[in-house]
C-alpha cells in the first residue's frame, strides 16, 4: 500500500494535514491582525522615536556638513605638525561660505565644545574675512596664522580633525564624565567635575534603598493581609489601594506639607522633645525627603505582588512545619519564606525599575542633593536644550532598565503582572 492511500482526506478531497495547516495559518493571521493596530501604533509613535533618540545622540553631521572641503583635505594630513597650505585654503573657503550664511557662530560654539578658545578665534577670523582683509592670491596659511596665535597651534587643528566623522560617542562619554583628549584617547574629567557619575551612583543608591525599605515594610503587611480573614483584610487593603489610586502629585504635596520645617512631623518631634523648637531639622529638599516620599509612593507596588503570591500559600504548610518540630521561626524561614521568593522578586524588580526612573517626586522634594538622573535629563531637555546629550543619558538609563525588565520577564513573565 502506498502512503498516499493512508492519508486522511477531508470531504473536499484535500488531505487533512494540508487543510489543518491552512486553517491554523488563517487563525494565526486573524490573531495577528487583532494585535496589529496597537503594535503598529506603538512602533510608529514610540519604538521608532526611541530609535531616533539614538541617532540623535550620536549625530555629529552638523560640523561635517559645515567644513566639507577642509575634512577632505585633512584626510591627507597626518595630524602631527601644522597642516599644509591646502588644508588652510580649504578651511578658508569653507569658512567664507559659513560667513555668507551667517553660520560661523555655530561653528565657533561647536568647536569650542571640542577645545576651549575656539569661540574667540573664530570671531577674530570672521572679522578678517568680513572686511575682506584676506588676500586670496597669496598664501592663505600665513594670513590665517597671523590672525591669532591659536591658529598657529597644532592642537587646535587636531581638534578640528577630530570632529570630522559624522558620528560621535562624545555625548555618551560626557554622560560618564569622560571626554576625548587632544590625541583622541578617552580621558576622565577632573575629579571635582565628575557630576554625572555622582548622579548615576546616587540614582542607583536611592533606587536600591527605596526597594529595600519597601521590601522591609511591605513584607509584614502583605503577610498580614494574606493571613487575616477576608472581612478584615478587605478593609486594610484599602490602606494600600487608596494611595495606589491617588494622584502622585497629591501624595507628593502631602509629604511636602508633612516634612516642611514648620510641618506636622517636625511639630511632633518637638512635642516629644526629640529636637529643640529653634533647631528643627531640614527634612525636605534633601535625600531624606526623597527616601521617605518615594518609599511611601512605591510601597503599594511591593505589597500587591507579594500579597498575590502569599494568598496562594496554604496555611497548613506552616502548621505542618511546626508539627514536624520546627519553631515558628524555623517554619517561617524554611517553609514560608522560600515560597514567597517569586513575589519578592516581582515586587523588588518592579519597585526598582520604577524608582530608577523617578522624576516628579525627587524634583519636588529632592532639592539639590536628592535629584536623580531623570532630573538631569529633563534639565538638558528644557534648560540647556542639549537634546542629543539628553537622548544619550536617556538611552544609558533605558539600557539599564531594559536589562532589569529582561530579568523580570525571565523570572516573572510580563503576562503575570497583576494590577489591583
Amino acid at each position: 500500500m502506498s502512503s498516499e492511500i493512508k492519508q486522511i482526506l477531508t470531504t473536499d478531497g484535500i488531505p487533512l494535514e494540508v487543510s489543518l495547516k491552512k486553517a491554523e495559518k488563517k487563525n494565526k493571521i486573524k490573531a495577528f491582525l487583532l494585535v496589529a493596530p496597537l503594535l503598529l501604533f506603538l512602533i510608529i509613535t514610540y519604538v521608532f522615536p526611541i530609535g531616533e533618540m539614538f541617532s540623535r545622540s550620536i549625530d555629529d553631521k552638523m560640523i561635517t556638513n559645515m567644513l566639507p572641503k577642509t575634512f577632505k583635505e585633512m584626510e591627507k594630513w597626518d595630524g602631527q605638525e601644522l597642516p599644509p597650505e591646502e588644508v588652510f585654503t580649504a578651511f578658508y573657503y569653507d569658512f567664507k561660505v559659513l560667513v555668507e550664511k551667517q553660520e560661523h557662530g555655530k561653528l565657533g560654539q561647536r568647536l569650542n565644545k571640542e577645545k576651549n578658545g575656539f569661540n574667540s578665534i573664530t570671531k577674530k577670523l570672521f572679522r578678517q574675512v568680513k572686511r575682506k582683509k584676506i588676500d586670496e592670491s597669496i598664501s592663505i596659511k600665513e594670513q590665517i596664522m597671523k590672525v591669532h596665535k591659536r591658529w598657529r597651534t597644532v592642537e587646535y587643528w587636531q581638534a578640528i580633525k577630530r570632529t570630522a566623522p559624522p558620528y560621535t560617542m562624545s555625548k555618551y562619554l560626557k554622560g560618564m564624565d569622560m571626554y576625548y583628549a587632544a590625541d583622541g584617547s578617552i580621558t576622565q574629567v577632573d575629579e571635582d567635575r565628575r557630576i554625572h557619575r555622582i548622579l548615576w551612583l546616587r540614582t542607583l543608591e536611592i533606587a536600591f534603598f527605596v526597594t529595600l525599605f519597601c521590601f522591609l515594610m511591605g513584607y509584614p503587611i502583605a503577610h498580614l493581609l494574606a493571613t487575616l480573614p477576608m472581612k478584615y483584610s478587605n478593609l486594610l487593603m484599602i490602606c494600600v489601594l487608596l494611595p495606589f489610586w491617588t494622584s502622585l502629585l497629591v501624595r507628593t504635596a502631602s509629604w511636602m506639607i508633612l516634612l516642611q520645617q514648620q510641618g506636622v512631623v517636625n511639630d511632633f518631634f518637638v512635642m516629644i522633645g526629640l529636637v529643640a523648637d529653634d533647631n528643627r531639622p531640614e527634612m525636605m529638599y534633601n535625600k531624606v525627603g526623597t527616601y521617605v516620599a518615594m518609599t511611601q509612593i512605591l510601597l503599594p507596588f511591593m505589597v500587591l505582588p507579594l500579597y498575590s503570591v502569599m494568598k496562594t500559600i496554604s496555611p497548613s504548610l506552616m502548621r505542618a512545619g511546626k508539627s514536624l518540630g520546627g519553631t515558628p521561626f524555623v517554619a517561617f524561614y524554611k517553609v514560608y519564606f522560600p515560597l514567597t521568593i517569586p513575589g519578592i522578586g516581582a515586587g523588588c524588580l518592579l519597585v526598582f525599575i520604577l524608582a530608577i526612573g523617578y522624576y516628579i517626586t525627587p524634583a519636588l522634594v529632592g532639592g539639590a542633593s536628592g535629584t536623580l538622573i531623570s532630573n538631569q535629563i529633563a534639565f538638558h531637555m528644557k534648560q540647556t536644550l542639549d537634546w542629543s546629550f539628553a537622548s544619550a543619558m536617556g538611552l544609558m538609563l533605558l539600557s539599564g532598565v531594559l536589562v532589569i525588565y529582561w530579568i523580570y520577564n525571565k523570572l516573572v513573565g510580563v503576562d503575570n503582572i497583576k494590577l489591583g
Partner: protein
Amino acid sequence: MALPSYTETRYRIWHYIYITICTFVFFFLIAPLFVIFPLSFNAEEFLVFSEGMKNLDPDAFSLRWYKDMIYGTKNPWGLAAKNSFIIAIFATIGSIILGTLAALGLSSRHMPYKGIIMATLISPMIVPLIISGVAIFFFMAKVGLAATHAGIVLAHIILGTPFVVITVTATLSGFDHSVTRAAASLGSNPVNTFMKVTLPLILPGVISGGLFAFVTSFDEVVVVLFLAGLENTTIPIQMWTGLREQLSPTILAVATCLIILSTLILISAELLRRRSERLRGINR
C-alpha cells in the same frame, strides 16, 4: 489574629512586635493623605496648622480656598480641569479599543511571537516616563502635534494601553472559549459573537483596564510637561507649577477633590473586581 492559648511568651512578644510594625506601616501609607483634608479648610494662607485649628476654633476654618479654586480670577483650574477630562476621556476610549483588540489577539493560542510582542506592548509601562516623554516629544514635534490636544491624547493612549492589555488578558485567561464556538455553531458571525457573547463576559476587565488608563492619563505630568502649551494645561501641570512656585492652599483644595475622585475610582474598581471574580466563578 488571636493567638492560641498555648503560645510561648517570646512568640507572644514577637507577635505583638509584628502587629505594631504592621500598624505603623499602614499608618505610614494612609496618614499622609489625611493631612490634606483639614489644611484645605484653613482660613489662613499658610500650609501649617494654625493655633486656632489645633483648638478646633470654628473661625480658623473656612471654605475660602475652595471658592478661590472655583471663582478665583487668575486661577487656571477651570481650564485645566476641562482639558484634563477631555484628554483623559479620549485617551481612555483609544486605549480601550486598541488594548482590547490586542488582548484578544494575544490570548489566542495561535498568536505567533507572543512573548516578544507582549513585551513590546507592555514596554511603555516599564520604560521610565522621562524617556517616554523625550521620545514622544520628538515624534509629536516632527508630525506637528506638539502643544495640541490630539498630541497629548495620542501620548496618553501609548501610556494607557499596557494597563488595558494586562487586565483584559488576565480576564481572558479564565475565559471559556467553547461559548464563542457555541455562538458560531448557532450561526452568529464573529462580530456579533464578540458583541453579544465575549464582550459582556470580559467587560469587567475592560472597564477596570479603562479605569487604569483614565487615571494614568488624568494623573500624567512628565510627558505633558514636554508636550503641553499654555492652551493645553492640565490639572497635574497646574499642581506641578503650584508645588514648584508658590505652595498655596488652593492646591490643597484641588488635592482634596482629587482624593475624593480617587476614592470613587477605587470603589468602582473593587466592585468590578468582585463582579469579575463572581462571573468567572472564582469563590474565595
